[in-house]
């Protein structure tokens, strides 16, 4: 039984209480501070006690008493929301995100706000104004990003589930690095209301769980149409799978572009073994091609910065957040000084790139071109799924967790950490990462990709693979 299910059952049976859970989580979070993971930006015993008292007054719900951590770019009224940026240091939102409202309505306890790459821009959680997050198994390595704090708190067993956000792989990639499950839903499945905007045509609130079932239970609560987000799709929430899927007669495609010759040998060994397990479970496995996926990262690094440059224009020191009065003392001096001092190097870099590709003379060469390639990337997936392939399977990342500092000086090498996840985000499809083995003790993730809105089927396949594979086994032994 998953940890989330255990907690809910214990609450229902009267074997535990929200107050007891609040004390247990507080003890774990306090202990974690001594390990210096730096995964948490805000938590307090008082806030947990208030959450417990609130839940005590509710009837039993789908997540009663379950502590859930929230990435710090999802707004909450009880804790600050900083986005890992100096420009929002101390900011407390006047409203809760829809996902948070739904979690609370289902009886979940908001346990903590988690560290992230500033404004979710990064793949290592080293780009936080509040310091880097350490990998739970090896403090010299990164946990992945940008939702590295949420991945780390689940991997360290501080909470059984956490919310993150995806723009190009920011939940699947850290899930892979940290050895937990990360689920990105179809674009439009979960409301973005209260998710601080980065790349609006890509952003998805997504879920981490210790197991697939943990993540599925949280996703089923937060998904569904929201009148406050016009890009949500008018469909009912994601249904929980009945259990692990039977893979008999199912076709799993292996896109050859995701198994390049220079793939890390350990990652290749782990994915090969997972493919063997899929076959043993009855699936027909066949090679397929997604030829435009090789252009996903450059496409992403035009579209996402362009959208970011527009979205981050709102941080100007006028209405909220930090204010720095510039030398001239005028309004424009205030804008430039506030933004120059408040944003870190990676955010500044992306705003500049985004502004450049949207500027007169370069718009068609970069932005229009990237939008056209995005169509091709999405069409590839449509063609494969239209030819009898039920799901796709790939490695989630080309390497295990890399060393801190290894890629911070070279933005392009950092961007390539998302090489197996960005195409799925550009196509708006659901996907998940689940642990499939280890290399020298470091987790490796396998990625399942589904047609739009087939999260339930994908999760059921994930459960089947999870049940049949030892995620702690060394891939090269």
């Amino acid at each position, binding site marked *: 039984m998953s940890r989330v299910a255990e907690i809910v059952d214990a609450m229902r049976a009267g074997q535990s209480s929200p107050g007891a859970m609040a004390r247990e989580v507080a003890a774990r979070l306090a202990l974690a501070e001594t390990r210096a993971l730096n995964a948490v930006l805000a938590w307090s015993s008082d806030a947990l006690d208030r959450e417990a008292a609130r839940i005590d007054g509710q009837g039993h719900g789908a997540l009663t008493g379950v502590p859930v951590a929230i990435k710090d770019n999802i707004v909450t009224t009880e804790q600050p929301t900083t986005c890992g940026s100096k420009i929002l240091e101390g900011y407390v939102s006047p409203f809760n995100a829809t996902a948070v409202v739904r979690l609370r309505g289902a009886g979940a306890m908001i346990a903590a706000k988690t560290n992230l790459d500033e404004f979710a821009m990064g793949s290592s959680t080293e780009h936080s104004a509040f310091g880097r997050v350490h990998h739970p198994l090896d403090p010299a390595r990164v946990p992945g990003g940008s939702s590295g704090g949420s991945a780390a708190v689940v991997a360290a067993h501080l909470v059984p589930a956490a919310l993150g956000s995806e723009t190009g792989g920011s939940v699947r990639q850290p899930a892979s690095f940290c050895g937990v499950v990360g689920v990105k839903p179809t*674009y439009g499945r979960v409301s973005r209301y209260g998710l601080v905007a980065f790349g609006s045509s890509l952003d998805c609130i997504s879920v981490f769980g210790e197991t697939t079932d943990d993540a599925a239970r949280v996703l089923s609560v937060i998904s569904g149409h929201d009148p406050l987000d016009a890009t949500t799709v008018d469909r009912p929430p994601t249904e929980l799978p009945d259990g692990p899927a039977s893979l008999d007669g199912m076709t799993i495609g292996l896109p050859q572009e995701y198994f390049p010759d220079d793939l890390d040998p350990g990652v290749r060994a782990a994915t090969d073994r997972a493919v063997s397990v899929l076959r043993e479970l009855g699936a027909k496995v066949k090679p397929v091609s997604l030829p435009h996926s090789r252009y996903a990262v450059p496409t992403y690094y035009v579209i996402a910065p362009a959208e970011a440059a527009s979205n981050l224009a709102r941080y100007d020191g006028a209405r*909220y957040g930090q204010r720095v*009065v510039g030398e001239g003392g005028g*309004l424009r001096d205030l804008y430039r*000084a506030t*933004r120059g001092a408040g944003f870190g190097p990676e955010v500044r870099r992306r705003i500049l790139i985004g502004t450049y590709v949207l500027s007169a003379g370069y718009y068609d060469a970069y932005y229009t071109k990237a939008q*056209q390639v995005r169509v091709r990337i999405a069409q590839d997936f449509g063609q494969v799924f239209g030819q009898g392939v039920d799901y796709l399977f790939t490695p989630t990342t080309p390497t295990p967790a890399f060393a801190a500092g290894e890629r911070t000086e070279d933005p392009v090498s950092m961007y390539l950490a998302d090489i197996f996840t960005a195409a799925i985000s550009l196509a708006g499809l659901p996907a998940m990462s689940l642990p499939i083995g280890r290399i020298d003790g470091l987790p490796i993730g396998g990625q399942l990709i589904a047609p739009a809105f087939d999260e339930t089927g994908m999760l059921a396949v994930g459960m089947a693979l999870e049940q049949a594979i030892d995620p702690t086994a060394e891939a090269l032994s």
Partner: protein
Amino acid sequence: MRITREEVLHIAKLAELQIPDAELERVTDELCRICDYVDQLNEVPIPSQADPFAPGPGRVGLREDIVRPTRLAHAPSAFAPEFVDGFFLVPKLDGMEEE
């Protein structure tokens, strides 16, 4: 392609970002490297009439246009740098028209 320092300064102005002189060369070099990397998109043949890709619902459903009070957990005075008598205070617009 080569982006010049002058172009970077122009982009920074458009983006309302102050870039310290000491960082200008590094920022210029990084932008050049990123644009060089992105230039590989030119390898992809594109039909002249390609429709843009839009994820999400085929039709955006807008909610009814009804004025409702917005319940805020904290008043603007709690999060605004300067908020007086219902107004967000900012410096004067002096000099803005010239730019």
